[in-house]
C-alpha cells in the first residue's frame, strides 16, 4: 500500500483503489483526484487540460465509468476503484485500444489520447461493435486540437474487433 504524507493539519484519511491496488491518502479530502494521481502517485499519464470538466484530458475510470478527475475531490471517492491509462492494460501489456491507436497511427501531439482511451475503453466494455455514431457520441466530451478524431474512431473499431477475437481487416 502506498501512503502519502499528510498535507495539512487535517488528519482525514481516504482510501482509494487505484489500478487495482489500495492507496491510503492522508490529508485534505478536498484535493482533486487528478492532483493526487499526478503529484502524489506519480501516475502522470492522466492529463490536466482545463480543470473545468470541459476537455476530457483528465478522464479516468471510476468503477468502470469515465469521469473527469480534474474536479473530483478524493474525499467523495473513498473505496471507489479508479483506473488510469497506466492501468488500462490490467498489467497484461497494452490494452487493445492502445495497440489499435498505434496501428491506426491515431495521434499527433498525443496530449488528448490518455483521456480518449479511457472513454473508448469504457465504450468497448459495453459494445464491441459500436457504430461510427456511437463512437462519436462516446468520445464527444474529449477535445482534440490536432484533429486525429477520425483516426481515433477507426482505432476504437479496430480494438473492438480485436477484443471480439475477430481479425477484421475491413475496419482499417
Amino acid at each position, binding site marked *: 500500500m502506498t501512503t502519502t504524507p499528510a498535507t495539512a493539519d487535517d488528519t482525514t484519511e481516504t482510501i482509494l483503489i487505484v489500478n487495482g491496488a489500495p492507496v491510503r491518502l492522508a490529508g485534505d479530502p478536498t484535493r482533486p483526484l487528478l492532483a493526487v494521481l499526478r503529484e502524489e502517485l*506519480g501516475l502522470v499519464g492522466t492529463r490536466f487540460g482545463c480543470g473545468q470538466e470541459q476537455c476530457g484530458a483528465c478522464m479516468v475510470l471510476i468503477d468502470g465509468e469515465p469521469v473527469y478527475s480534474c474536479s473530483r475531490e478524493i474525499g467523495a471517492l473513498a473505496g471507489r476503484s479508479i483506473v488510469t491509462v497506466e492501468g488500462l492494460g490490467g498489467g497484461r501489456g497494452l490494452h487493445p485500444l492502445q495497440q489499435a491507436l498505434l496501428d491506426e497511427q491515431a495521434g499527433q501531439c498525443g496530449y488528448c489520447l490518455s483521456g480518449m482511451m479511457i472513454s473508448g475503453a469504457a465504450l468497448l466494455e459495453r459494445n464491441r461493435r459500436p457504430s461510427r455514431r456511437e463512437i*462519436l457520441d462516446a468520445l464527444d466530451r474529449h477535445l482534440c486540437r*490536432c484533429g486525429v478524431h477520425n483516426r481515433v474512431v477507426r482505432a476504437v473499431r479496430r480494438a473492438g474487433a480485436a477484443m471480439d477475437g475477430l481479425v477484421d481487416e475491413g475496419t482499417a
Partner: protein
Amino acid sequence: MIPNTLPQSLIDNPLLSDWIGFEPEGRVRVSTGKVEIGQGILTALVQIAAEELDVAPSRIRTVSGETSGGPNEGVTAGSTSVAMSGAAIRLACAEVRALFLAHGADRLGVPAESLVVEDGRLRRDGRDTGHDYWSLAAEIDLTRPATGGAPAKSPTQYRVVGTDLPRVDLPAKIEGRGFIHDMVAPDLVHARIVHRPWRDARLASLDEAAVRRAAGLPIEILREGDFAALLGEREFAVQRAALIAREKAVWEGGTPLPDDTNSPDWVLAQPSRTRVVDTGTPPEREDGEVVSATYWRPFQTYGSIGPSCALARFEDGQLTVWSHTQNPYALREQLARCLGLDGAVTVLHRQAAGCYGHNTADDAAFDAAFLATRRPGRTVRVLFTREDEFMAAPFGAAMVIGLRAVLGPDRRPASWTIDIASPVHSNRPGSHGHHGFRSREALPDPPPQPVIRNDNPDAAGGGATRNGYALYDLPFHRLIHRTVDPVPLRTSSLRGLGAYANIFAIESFMDELAEAAGADAVAYRLSLMSDPRARAVIEAAAEMCGWPGDAPRGEGRGLGLGFGRYKNRAAYMAVAAEVEVDEAVRLVRIWGAADCGLVITPDGAKNQLEGGIIQAASWALKEELRFADGKVATTNWDDYPILRFSEMPEIEIRLVGESRDPPLGVGEAAMGPTAAAIGNAVARALGTRIRALPLSRERIMAALLA
C-alpha cells in the same frame, strides 16, 4: 537526383558531428535544431537519416532543440522543417556513410565501390567484413565540415523514405508518458503567474490573505512591479490560489481593450502603414464589369489542449530551462538578454501538446527562468492556467481583405486588386528587436516597446500577405498591404499566418467571379490556371467529391471547393467540402488532394492534412475571441467552442505528387483551402454568401432572415 548544393542548415552548422554520432550498443545519434510540436517531424528525420546511413530506424536516437549541443536551425515553423533539416541530415548522413566506406575500404585494401552498408555493417560480395560504423567510429573524426561531396541517394533507391514508419514518439504517449508536464525533480517548486489582463495594466491590489486561504497550504506570493507569482510545494494548492488570485487582483491604467475589438471596424480604425505592390501590366482601359467583395477573419486563438509548461533551474550562475518553445535558440538569447545571463543559459526542448503557432511556451519559459533566478537551487515549474491560455496568449491576427476585379470581355479578370489590412503576424521572442515575453513587461523597468513593428517580409513568405498573391493567371495584380500598427495587443503567428484568410478570400472571390461569368467554379479556376500541379490537385479534388454534385442551389445542401499552394511555394492542395445548412452548418464530408512532392512519410503527411482540415473547419465555423471589461472574455472551452467528435465529417485524402519532385511542406497546406471550400459550399447551400468568419449559427440565421 536531388542536387547537392549545401542547404542553409549545413552552412550554419557545418560540422558532421553537429548532426551525427555513433553511440554504444549500436545506436546512432541524429541531432536536429527542429523540434517535435505534434507534427511528426522527428519521425520523418529518422527516416531520412536511416535511409542515407543504411541503418535500421530503430537504432536512431534523436536529439532535438537542445542549445547545449546540436545544430541551430532557428524556429520550427512555416512547414519548412523537412526541407531545411531534412536536407541537411540527408547530406550529412550520405557524407558520413561515404567516409566510413572509404575508411573501411582502406583497412580492407579493397575499392570502396565494392562495399555496401547494411544496417550499419560493412559488407562485401554479400559477406560481412567484420567492420561496422561502431567499430570504426573511433578512427574517424566527424568534427569536420560537411562538403556536400558525397552523393545522396536518388528517390528511386529509397527503401525507408516514402514508407509509413510509425511515429517514433507515439508509443510513449499512448502509455501516458513523454510530455514536459510529466517531468519531476526532488526539489520542485510549483508556480503560477497572475497575468495582466491587458497591456500596461498596473496591479493596484491583490488580496493576498484571500489567495492564501484559497491555497489551503502555505504558499509564497512573490511580487515585483506589476508581476505577481504564487509558489508552493504542492501544485493543487498553487493552482487553487491562482484561480482566486485572478479574481482578486485589481488592475488599473494601461490599455484596456474595447468590447468591439474583434470587429473589422475596430481593426480599420487603428493606425496603419500602407504599401502597394503592382505586378504585371495594368489594362489600358478599366471599363469592364467590376466585382468586389470584402472578407473578414477575426482574432482567433490556437487553443492547445495542454496548457504551456516550463521548468527552470538556476545554480552556480548557470540557468537551465526546459521548454516546448518553437525556437530554443531565440529563447536562449532573449532569456540571457532579459536576465543579464549572457553565455549562461541552456534551453532544452521537451515535448508538449500540439503547437499551431506562437503560443505561451516562451512566456512560460521566461516565467520559470525568472522565478528560478529568485529561487536559486530549486527547480521551478510553471504551468499556465486554462484561463490564461486564452487571456494571456498571443492572438492570431484579424484580417480585413478587400478584393476587386475588373472583368474583360472574356469574363476573365483584366485587373485584380487585393487590399489586406491586418496587424503583424509575428511577435515571437526576438521579433522587432523585442524580447516578446509577457511577464517581462510587467516587471520593473521593461525595455521600451518597439516604435514600429513591421510584418514578416514577403520574401520570407509574408505575414498578412502570405498567399495574398493569387496563383491564377492574372495580367495585372495589385497588392495593397496595410500593416495595422501599433495596436495594444500582441498579435502573432497562427498556423498558416495570412494564408488562411487570404486563401479563404481569394477562393471565395473566385467563386463569385465564376458566378458573375456564368461559369462553373471549377472550370473557371482551371481556365485561369496554367500551373499543371495546381490543375492536378483541383481536378483530383473535383473528381473525388463528384463535382458539381446534384444539389440545387439554395436548398440547404452543397459542395464547395478551394485551392491554395501554401506560401505559393510549399505543398499544393485542393479541398472539397459537402455541407448541410439549416440553422447551422453541418459538415458532411471533406476531400483533400495534395501534391507535396517527395513525401517522407505518406501516412504522416495525411495525418497532418486531415488534422489541418479539422482545425481549419473549426476556425471557419466556430471560433472567435470575444472581449469585455477590457480583456478577453472567452476564457474557457464553453465560451470558445471548437469542433467536436460529434461534428466530425468523414475525410478522404489523396496524395497526387511525384517522388521525383523535392519535398514540399505539408503542415499548413490544408488551412486556407478548407475554409474556402466550406465557405463556398455554404454559399451554395444557402444561396447567399457570408463573407465574415466564422460561419456561426448567428451569421447563418442572420443570412436566412436577410
